[in-house]
Structure formats: C-alpha cells, structure tokens
C-alpha cells in the first residue's frame, strides 16, 4: 500500500443481519484527491461512508469486518470516536438544516468540541459559510432559522456545517439530488476549491458529475468493486471492464 494514502480500506465486509452488502472491498484514497464513487442504488455506497465515520454503529444489526485506516489509524479501534467524526465532514443526500439559527447550525460542531469564545466561533462561522458559497446570501440574517432556507441554500448550509469542524476529509453523498443544476454547479466549483485543503470523497449517481470532478473513480456494484482507475480511463472508451463502459454510457441492464 502506498505511503501517502489518506484512507486505506482492506477487505471490508459489511452485513445487515444476514444480508451482506459489501463483499470484502479494498482500495486506497490519496491525500487531496477527489475520489469519485459511482454505482446504482443498493450498491453499498452510503454504507461504505458510514463505515468510515463509524456512524454505522447506530445500526445495531450491522456487522463489520476488515480494516479501515485514516492517517494510519484504525477507525474501528479509535480511542476518540467523536474526534474521528470531526476529522470527516459528511454531507447527506437530502439537505438537513438543523432547527437552529443559521449561526448555530455552523457553530454547533465547534461548540460540541469545546470551543466557547465568541470571536473564534464568529470567525469559523464566517469562514465556513464563505467556503460553502452561502455567506453573501445569509450574512444579514444569521439569527434566522436554518430550516427556513431554500433547499439549495440548506444544502450549502449542510456543507458549511460539515466544514465547521475543520475536517481533513469531506464526504459528499449524492449532494445534488435535491437541488437545481445552477446551485449544483456552484457547489462543484466550491469542491474544486476545497481540494487544496482536504481529501474529497464524492459519491454520486450522476456519472457526469464524477467525470467533471473526480481524479479517480471507483465503480461499485452490488457491494463489489468492478473497476477503480483514473477518471480518464473509467469514462473513456477503453475501461477494463465492459460493465463499466455500459454503466457510464447508460447501456446498463
């Protein structure tokens, strides 16, 4: 395994009860790359992300085997689970504005981590909202409710919240399914900016989105890796596996 790998996954198996959804997959994610994961529904993409930040723990019927390391540390044996989750920003498919003010939505994670000084919190809130391309729209009403924003704004708020604990890894799980194409393009520009500071895992149903953004793309299907290569090859005319070509070009099934 390469030394500069940010995340290493080795022989990861995940089962909900008796139904196995990940059948022993292994791959590396490098520092500061945008790593695309494509695949149809039920192929295990979201479950994979939940294994990485250990929110899989909240599904009592799930059993995990294999190893996942982040910066060389085994996440399944981590001492401080909450610190692990703060190293990983997670953006869910549907925007979730917490029923708090816009300010508190972003300040929530730093507060949970013990930050109390108003000036520090103000700085983080502004920085994250700017990074998520939302600052200009909400800077005059930071005390209004996050849940009253429009869908696209809420998704950017969700991204700002995911950045608020200054993660080294940002996981975006089909972030664009509930928002319009214009907002999607704005967020894609944001992602291109963010990669300088962090590693990005981009799970998407839109194969074109992975083609536009990802350095390398993994095609996951029924809990197995069909192919993992640079996006040029995955989305080119000559991927190694015929199913990749068919899926990417809409001929699948």
């Amino acid at each position: 395994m390469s030394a500069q790998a940010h995340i290493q996954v080795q022989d990861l198996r995940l089962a909900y009860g008796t139904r196995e959804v990940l059948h022993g997959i292994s791959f590396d994610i490098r520092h500061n790359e945008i790593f695309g994961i494509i695949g149809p529904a039920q192929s295990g993409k979201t479950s994979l992300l939940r294994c990485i930040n250990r929110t899989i723990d909240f599904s009592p019927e799930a059993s995990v085997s294999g190893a996942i390391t982040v910066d060389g540390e085994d996440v399944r044996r981590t001492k401080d689970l909450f610190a692990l989750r703060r190293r990983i920003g997670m953006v869910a498919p549907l925007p979730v504005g917490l029923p708090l003010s816009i300010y508190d939505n972003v300040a929530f994670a730093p507060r949970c981590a013990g930050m109390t000084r108003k000036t520090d919190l103000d700085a983080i809130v502004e920085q994250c909202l700017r990074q998520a391309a939302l600052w200009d729209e909400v800077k005059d009403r930071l005390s209004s409710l996050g849940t009253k924003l429009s869908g696209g704004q809420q998704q950017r708020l969700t991204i700002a919240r995911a950045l608020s604990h200054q993660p080294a890894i940002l996981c975006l799980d089909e972030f664009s399914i509930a928002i319009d194409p214009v907002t999607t393009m704005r967020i894609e520009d944001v992602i291109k900016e963010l990669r300088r500071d962090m590693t990005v895992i981009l799970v998407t149903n839109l194969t074109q989105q992975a083609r536009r953004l990802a350095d390398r793309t993994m095609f996951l299907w029924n809990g197995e890796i069909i192919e993992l290569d640079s996006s040029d090859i995955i989305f080119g005319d000559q991927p190694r596996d015929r199913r990749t070509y068919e899926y990417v070009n809409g001929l699948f099934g």
Partner: protein
Amino acid sequence: MFAETPFVRSKRRSEAFAKWLFFAMSAAMVLPLLLIVGYLFVKAAPSLNINFLLDVPRRGMTQGGIWPAFVGTVYLVFISLAISAPVGILAAVYLNEYARDNWLNRMINLAVINLAGVPSIVHALFGLGAFVYAARLGYSILSASLTLAIMTLPVIIASTREALASVPMSFREACWNVGATRWQTIRAVVLPNSISGILTGVILQVSRAAGETAPIMFTGAVFFKAVQKGEVFAYHLNEQCMALSMHLYTISTQVPGVKESIPFATAVVLLASVLLVNAAAITLRALMRSRKKW
C-alpha cells in the same frame, strides 16, 4: 353525452349515504357530553358560587362548601406529578434515545406497557402495601401521591416517547456526523423540539390523577378533615387529606340529608378544574406548534 349512467348514480348515492352515516356517528358523540354537562350545571345551579368553593363543609357535610377537598386534590395532583414527571421523562429519554434492542430493554418496555394496563384498584392495593405499610409512610398525602405517581408514570413515559420520536431521525444523524455525543444531540436538538409534546402529555395526566378515587381512598384520602375556610397550606405531607373525587363519593352515597345541589356542584368544580387544565395544555401546544421550526 355526459348523462349519468346507473352505475355512476348508485356510486354517488352510496358515497352520500356513507358520508352522512359517518357524520351522524360523530355528531352523536357530542350529544352525551352536552347532556352531561348541561344536566350537571342545571342541578348544581343553586349552590354554584365562589363561597361554595372557599367554604368548609358544615352540619355533618350536609351544607357548606368543599374547600378542604379542593385543596387536597390540588396537593395530591401536584405532588404526584412532581414525582412522576421527572422520572417518566428521564426514563423515556433513555428508552427512546439510548436503549438498544436487547432483552433487558424489551423487558423494560413490556413492564411499561403492562403497568399502563393495571386497573387503578390494583394500584391502590399496591400503594397500601408498599407505601402505607412497608415504607411506613402511613395513611398520608405522601403515600397517596406516590400511588398516583406510579399510576401516571407509564402513560407519561409513553407520551414522552411519542414526542421524542416525532423529532426526525435525520436531525440526530446530522448531529452525530459532526462529532456530537448523544447527550449533546439530545440537549441541542431533540429536547427543544419535543418539549411541547412532552409537557402536553404530562398535563393531560392531571385529569387522571384528579379523577381517580380508589388509589387515594386506600392510601391517604379521608372522609373529613377540619380545615380553615380558604386556607391554602391546609395539610402536612404526613397527614391525610380530603379530595374532590372521594368527597363526591361520600356525600352522594354515605351521608344522609345532603342538600341536593351540593354533589352536583362538587362534580362541576371537579370537571371545571380538569377542563381548565386541559385547555391550558391545548393552548400551550398550539402556541409551541406555531413556533415549530421545520
């Protein structure tokens, strides 16, 4: 061209019939309530005045007012809910937010459900054995309140769990994803958004605690107790007290020669206080709901 076919006509008729049948049944519900309340008020009218509420019973309970019983009921209701509300709410938070699906928690769940189904007379016997005798609290307000607390506890747990469960799971997941602990999540998001439902559930138990007769009759309510007219701190926790429900029972069945309007007026006071508290609960819920945040 668009003439009604026989099939369409029969469909329309059965639709109209069904609608009227259902309406008639709902309307029939209101009738008994109106009759009961109206009958009570008419019968109670001669005795209904502020002095009836504030005065003590006189001439062997055949005349006078109901103050000692009213204050006793207020004592019993507040003390019992002061015990059962905190215990019930904390238990419900555990069961809904922390508990995993294992045999121990399934047992706890089963116990809560069964406790809710226990008849009040059984609670009364339990209270007599546990609090009056075993815990040596004697026949007292404390014993009676504890018995009522046990009786209202499972319902408070159930209503609180329902209120907690109405907070969308996605909020919790969003908090966990940014590294919040369960308690941080509960305090910041879950409790603030379920508190109105929780309070409503607790307040609705006031009417149950106020109306039950058997549990307090066995454990701390008494036939007569000398109290000053209009005295608010009329009882000590370790003594017995009068209560509206018990008082209504005794003057209706045990005491000869009671002025006819007095039992009815007592019932009106009991009903009115309970309805007042329920109305407060409904207003509170409406108020909180209008500020709902999603």
